[in-house]
C-alpha cells in the first residue's frame, strides 16, 4: 500500500493542534513557532499533493479507502480532483499567513484584566480548523464529509467567541456582548444548515444504501439507481441549504458580517477565505454530482438569489461604517459570483467559479489582513476614525490599495480573470442575468474607493499622524500575497490547467454542453 | 358481595388521598395521603386478583407494601431534616426545586 498522502496532509495539522494545545502557557512563543512550523509542513505536504496530482489522469486520485462502520456502509474514503487540489493548496497556503498575522492577537491581556486567554489555544484551534477543512476537501464519502463539515464549527466558535476583536467604540463590556452574540449566531446558523443536511444525508442513505460519492454518482449515471423526481429535489435542497448557509447566499448571509466584525482579522480571513469555501466547493462536488437533475431544476432560483447576493452585498458594503463589516459584505457579493458561476452550467462559469474561490481567498486575505494591521494601530474599526493614513504609513496604504484593487477585480490582478470568466459563462446562457451582474463591478469600485479615500487620503488626522508603517513581520505576510495576486492575474494557467479537466467532468455529470456561438466560422 | 363494590371503595380512597395531596400543606398529612393512595391501589389489586382468579394482583400488592415501607423511611427522614432546618413542615415553604 502506498503512503496515505491525503490522510497525512489532514492529520499533520490535527496532531499539531493537539501538541500545540499541550504547550504550557508560560512558553507561548514556543507554541507560536510550533504552530507556524506545522502549518509550513502541511503546506509542503499540500504542495506534494499538487505535484503528484496528474490533471489528465483519473478523476479522483491519491485515493484511500478503508471500511469504517460496516453496518451502515460508511467507508473512510478520500480522493481529490482538480478542484479539490486547488482548494487544498489555497488552504495550506493561507494558514501560515493567518498564523503569522495573528502572532500577537492572542497574547494575554494587560495585567488587571480577568479574562483568561490561552495563547497556545488560539493557534491550536487554527490548526484544528485547517485539519477539518482539508479533510472536507478530500472526503469522497458523504458521511465522512458531513462529520468534518459540522465539527469545524466547534473550533470556529471558540475562535470567534474567545479571541475576538477588542476594538469597540463602547468599551470592553460591549465588545464582549457583541462577540458572544456573533459566535452564537455563527454556530446556530451553521448548525441549522447542518441538521437539515443531516436529514438529507440519512435520506440519501435510505435511497442509495451507502454513502460513497463515487458509487452513488456512478449508479445514477448508469441508471441503476433511480431516484423519484421529488425525492431528488428534497435531498438536493437539504444539501444545498447547508452549503448556502456556509457560503453564504442571500438571505442566509447575516451571520457573516457579525462573525467577521467581531473576530480578529486573521480569524475573519479564516472564516471567509477558508471555511466558507467548503460551502461553495461542496455545491460543485455534492449537489451537482449527486443530484444533477434537481440542480438543473433549481438553477433559475439559485441564479436569482446569487444575483441578489452580488448587488445586495455590494450596496450594503457601500453603506457600512465599519471596515471589517464592509469587507464582509464585499465577500457576500463575491460569493454571489462564485455560486452564479457554479450554477451557470458552462465550462467558463465553473472554471471561473473555482478560480474565483482561490483568488477570492488570496485577495480577501490581503485586504483583510492589512485592514487588521491598520485597526490594531488605531484601536478602532470605524472608517470615520481614520484619514490621511497614506501620509503617515505609505507602505501600509499602498498594500491596502492593492488589496482593494484586487477586491474590485482590476485587470492584471488575479480576481479579474475569475470574475470575467464567471460573467462570460453566465452571459452565454442567461444574458440578462449576466448584464445585471456586471453592475457589481461598478459597485465594487464604489465601496473600495470610498473606503480607501476616507481612510487613507485627505488631511492627516491627529490620531494617525504617528502611526508606524508596516513592520517586517507584517510585510512578510502581505508581500507574498500581493506577488501571488499579480502572478495569478498575469498567468493563471497553472491553476486553470488543474481545474479544467475536473470542470469538464462536472459538466458531463449534469449533461450540459456549452452554448455554441452564433457565427461558427469565426472559431 | 359483588367485588365491584371494593373497586368503588378503592376509587373513593384514592380520590380522598389525591385531594389531600393537592390541598394540604402539612408534609406529614400529605405523606399520609400518599399512603392512603397506595393502599387504595393495593385494595384494587387484590380485588382484581379475586375477580380474575389468579395471584398476580396479590403479588404486586406485596411489592407495593415493601416499596411503601421503604418510601416511608426515606420520606420521613426528609421531612424530619426539613423540619429541623426550616422549623416548618409546610411543603409550600420548600420551593427549591425550580431552576
Amino acid at each position, binding site marked *: 500500500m502506498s503512503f496515505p498522502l491525503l490522510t497525512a496532509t489532514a492529520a499533520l495539522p490535527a496532531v499539531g493542534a493537539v501538541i500545540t494545545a499541550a504547550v504550557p502557557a508560560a512558553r507561548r512563543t514556543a507554541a507560536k513557532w510550533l504552530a507556524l512550523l506545522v502549518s509550513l509542513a502541511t503546506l509542503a505536504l499540500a504542495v506534494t499533493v499538487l505535484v503528484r496530482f496528474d490533471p489528465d489522469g483519473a478523476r479522483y486520485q491519491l485515493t484511500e479507502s478503508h471500511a469504517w462502520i460496516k453496518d451502515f456502509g460508511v467507508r473512510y474514503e478520500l480522493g481529490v480532483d482538480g478542484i479539490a487540489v486547488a482548494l487544498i493548496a489555497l488552504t495550506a497556503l493561507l494558514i501560515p499567513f493567518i498564523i503569522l498575522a495573528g502572532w500577537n492577537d492572542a497574547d494575554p491581556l494587560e495585567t488587571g484584566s480577568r479574562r483568561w486567554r490561552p495563547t497556545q489555544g488560539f493557534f491550536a484551534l487554527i490548526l484544528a480548523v485547517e485539519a477539518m477543512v482539508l479533510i472536507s476537501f478530500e472526503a469522497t464519502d458523504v458521511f465522512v464529509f458531513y462529520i468534518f463539515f459540522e465539527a469545524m464549527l466547534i473550533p470556529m466558535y471558540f475562535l470567534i467567541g474567545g479571541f475576538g476583536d477588542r476594538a469597540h467604540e463602547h468599551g470592553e463590556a460591549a465588545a464582549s456582548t457583541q462577540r458572544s452574540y456573533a459566535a452564537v449566531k455563527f454556530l446556530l446558523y451553521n448548525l441549522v444548515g447542518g441538521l437539515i443536511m443531516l436529514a438529507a444525508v440519512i435520506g440519501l442513505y435510505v435511497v442509495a444504501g451507502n454513502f460513497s460519492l463515487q458509487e452513488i454518482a456512478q449508479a445514477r449515471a448508469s441508471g441503476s439507481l433511480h431516484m423519484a423526481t421529488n425525492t431528488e429535489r428534497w435531498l438536493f435542497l437539504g444539501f444545498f441549504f447547508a452549503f448556502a448557509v456556509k457560503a453564504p447566499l442571500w438571505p442566509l448571509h447575516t451571520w457573516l458580517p457579525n462573525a467577521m466584525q467581531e473576530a480578529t482579522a486573521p480569524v475573519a480571513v479564516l472564516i471567509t477565505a477558508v471555511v466558507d469555501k467548503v460551502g461553495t466547493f461542496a455545491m460543485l462536488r455534492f449537489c451537482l454530482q449527486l443530484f444533477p437533475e434537481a440542480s438543473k431544476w433549481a438553477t433559475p432560483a439559485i441564479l436569482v438569489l446569487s444575483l441578489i447576493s452580488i448587488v445586495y452585498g455590494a*450596496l450594503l458594503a457601500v*453603506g457600512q461604517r465599519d471596515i471589517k463589516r464592509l469587507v464582509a459584505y464585499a465577500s457576500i457579493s463575491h460569493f454571489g459570483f462564485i455560486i452564479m458561476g457554479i450554477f451557470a452550467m458552462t465550462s467558463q462559469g465553473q472554471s471561473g467559479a473555482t478560480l474565483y474561490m482561490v483568488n477570492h481567498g488570496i485577495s480577501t486575505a490581503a485586504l483583510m489582513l492589512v485592514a487588521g494591521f491598520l485597526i490594531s494601530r488605531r484601536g478602532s474599526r470605524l472608517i470615520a476614525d481614520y484619514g490621511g493614513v497614506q501620509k503617515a504609513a505609505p507602505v501600509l496604504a499602498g498594500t491596502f490599495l492593492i488589496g482593494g*484593487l484586487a477586491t474590485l477585480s482590476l485587470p492584471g490582478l488575479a480576481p479579474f480573470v475569475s470574475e470575467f470568466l464567471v460573467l462570460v459563462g453566465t452571459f452565454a446562457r442567461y444574458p440578462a442575468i449576466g*448584464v445585471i451582474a456586471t453592475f457589481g463591478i461598478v459597485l465594487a469600485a464604489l465601496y473600495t474607493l470610498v473606503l480607501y479615500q476616507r481612510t487613507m487620503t485627505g*488631511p492627516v488626522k491627529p490620531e494617525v499622524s504617528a502611526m508606524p508603517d508596516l513592520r517586517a513581520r507584517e510585510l512578510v505576510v502581505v508581500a507574498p500575497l500581493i506577488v501571488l495576486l499579480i502572478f495569478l492575474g498575469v498567468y493563471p*494557467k497553472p491553476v486553470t490547467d488543474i481545474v479544467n479537466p475536473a470542470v469538464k467532468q462536472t459538466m458531463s455529470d449534469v449533461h450540459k454542453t456549452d452554448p455554441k456561438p452564433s457565427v461558427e466560422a469565426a472559431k | 358481595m359483588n367485588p365491584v363494590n371494593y373497586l368503588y371503595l378503592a376509587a373513593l380512597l384514592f380520590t380522598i388521598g389525591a385531594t389531600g395531596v393537592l390541598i394540604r400543606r402539612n408534609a406529614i398529612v400529605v405523606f399520609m395521603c400518599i399512603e392512603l393512595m397506595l393502599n387504595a391501589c393495593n385494595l384494587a389489586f387484590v380485588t382484581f386478583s379475586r375477580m380474575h382468579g389468579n395471584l398476580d394482583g396479590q403479588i404486586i400488592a406485596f411489592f407495593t407494601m415493601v416499596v411503601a415501607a421503604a418510601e416511608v423511611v426515606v420520606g420521613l427522614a426528609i421531612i424530619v431534616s426539613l423540619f429541623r432546618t426550616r422549623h416548618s413542615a409546610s411543603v409550600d415553604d420548600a420551593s427549591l426545586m425550580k431552576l
Partner: protein
Amino acid sequence: MENLIALLIAAPLLGAAVLLTGGRRLDRVGHWIGTLLSAASFVFGLILFVDLLGKNAEHRTLIKHLFSWVPVAGFQADATFRLDQLSMTFVLLITGVGSLIHLYSVGYMEHDERRRRFFGYLNLFLAAMLLLVLADNYLLLYVGWEGVGLASYLLIGFWQHKPSAATAAKKAFLVNRVGDMGLSIAIMLMFTTFGSFAFGPVLSHATQASEGKLTAIGLMLLLAACGKSAQVPLQSWLGDAMEGPTPVSALIHAATMVTAGVYLIVRSGAVFNAAPDAQLAVTVVGAVTLLFGAIVGCAKDDIKKALAGSTMSQIGYMVLAAGLGPIGYVFAIMHLVTHGFFKAGLFLGAGSVMHGMNDEVDMRKYGGLRTYMPVTFITFGLGYLAIIGFPGLSGFFSKDKIIEAAFAKGGTEGWILGGAALLGAAITAFYMTRVMLMTFFGEKRWQPDENGNEPHPHESPRVMRIPMIVLAVGSVFAGGLFSIGDRFLHWLEPVTGHSEGHSPVSAWTVTGATMVCLLVGVGIAWAQYGRKPVPAVAPRGSLLTRAARRDLLQDDFNHVVLVRGGEHLTRSLVYVDHTLVDGVVNGTAAGFGGLSGRLRRLQNGFARSYAVSMFGGAALLVAATLLMRAV
C-alpha cells in the same frame, strides 16, 4: 523584430516596478530612471517604425504571441500583441509625447517630495497605454484600458492630502467603470456571437453576424468609449480630473488616454460598418460632445478646466469622424495625433504659467504675462493657432477634413453634423482666444495672496522649455506633413479602410465657411476680452454662462439622482438588512426565548403544583385511552 514589441511595454513596466518598490534610496535618481526608460521605449518604437516603413503596405502587421493567458474550455485569451499601422501611430504618439512630458515633469515636480512615486505612476501609465494599443484581443485591451484608468486614478489623486483631489480621482475611476461595464458586456457579446474576442476572428467575420447583435456590440463599445474619452453622458469626470498635476493633464487627460475611446471605435471599424444604427449613435455623441465641451470651455475661468472643456470638444470631433465610417476613420486618427501635439503643448504652457504664478489657476488673476514668460507665450501661441485651425498649422488640416467628411455623410444628418462641426469651430476660436487674451494680454491683474506673497512671474527652467518647444514645432508642422500628398491616408488605409465621400458642398466652400467661423469667433472674443479690460471678479453672466460654469448642470443632476438616490438606497438597505433579514432570524430566536420563558414559569418549585400536573397528565392519559377504546 517582434520581440521588440514586448520590450516596448516591458521598459516602462520595469520602470514602474523599480520606482514603486525601490524605496527612498532611489529618490535622487528615480525621475531620471523613469525618463530614460520612457525614452528607451520611444527608441524601440522608432526602430519598429523604420522597420515597418521598409515593408510593403500589406505586410506591415507584426504579431507577437507571448503566452496563453486564460485557457479555459472554449474560452481562449492569449497574451498576444499586434503591431500594425494604427497601433504604430499610437505607439509613437504615446512614447514620444510621453517622454517629453517625463522630461518636463523633472522640472515641474522638482520640489515635490514624492517625485519618485510620480514617475513610477507615469511609467505605469505608459505601460498600460501601450498594452491597450498593442493588444491583439479585446480582453487584453481591457487590461490596458483599466490599467490606464488606474494610472489616471493614482495621478489625479497624486496630491492625496487635498480632499478635492482624492474625490476627483475616485469620481474619474467610477465614471470610467461605468464605461468599462460597456466594454465587458461588448466582449461577452462577442464571445457568444463569434466564440472569440480576438481582433482577427471578430473583425473578419463581423458581416456574418446579425445586425441586431452588431448594433448591441457597437453601442456597448460606444459606452466604453464615452467613459474613457469623456463623451456625453459620461463626461463629468474630466473637468475634476484637472486636480492632478499639470503634466498628468497634458499626457493622460489631453494627449493619450482620453483618446483611447477613439482608438477603440476605429479599431472596431468592421463592427460599426455593419451596424449603421450604432454608427449614427456614435456621430450623435460626438456632435453633442463637441458642442457641450466647447460651451463649457467658454465659461471656465480656471485655465486648466477651460482646456479640459476644449479637450472634450476636440475628442468630440474625433468621435464624430470615427462614427462616419470609412470616410472618417483616417481623419479621426489624424486629428487625434495633431491634437496630441497642440493640446499637450497648451497644457504644458498652462503648467508653465502656473509654475511661475504660485500655482494660481484663475485666469482672471493673470494678464499681460507675454513679457514675463516669452517662450511660454510663443509656444502656447503656436498651440493656440493650431487648435483654432489657423491656415497652414496642424489643426487646420485635420479639423477641416473632419468637417468636410461630416457634410459628406449626406442627407439631413450630413447637414446637421456638418453644421454642428462648423459651429464648434467658431466656439473653439472664441474660447481659445479668450484664454489667450486673458492670460497673456491686457493688464496684469494678480494680487498678493492673504499671506502677502505676491507672485513673481518668471520663465520656467530649461527642462520644461524644451518639451514645450518640441511640441510647438509638432503643432505647426505635423498637419502639413501628414496631409501633403495624403501621406497619413496611405499609411493608415490598409488597416482602417478609406472611401471618399460625396460631399454636397465643395471642399473649398467648407474651408471658406470654416475660415469665416474662425474669424467670427476670434472677433467676438476680442471684442469682449481684448478691447475691454477683464474684470478680476467674474460677472454674474447669462443663464447659459452660469450653467456652463457648472458643467451644464450635469454634476448637479448626477448629485441629485445618483449620489443622493444611491445614499438613500444603501441606507434603506442597511436598515432592511438589519431589521428585516436579520429581524426574521432574531425574531425566531426571540420567539423561542419567549416561549421557553413562559414554559419555565411552570417549574415553580412547589411540590403540589407538580402533583397537579401529574394528576392532570394521568387523567388525560386515562381519558385518551377510554376515548380510543370507544372509537
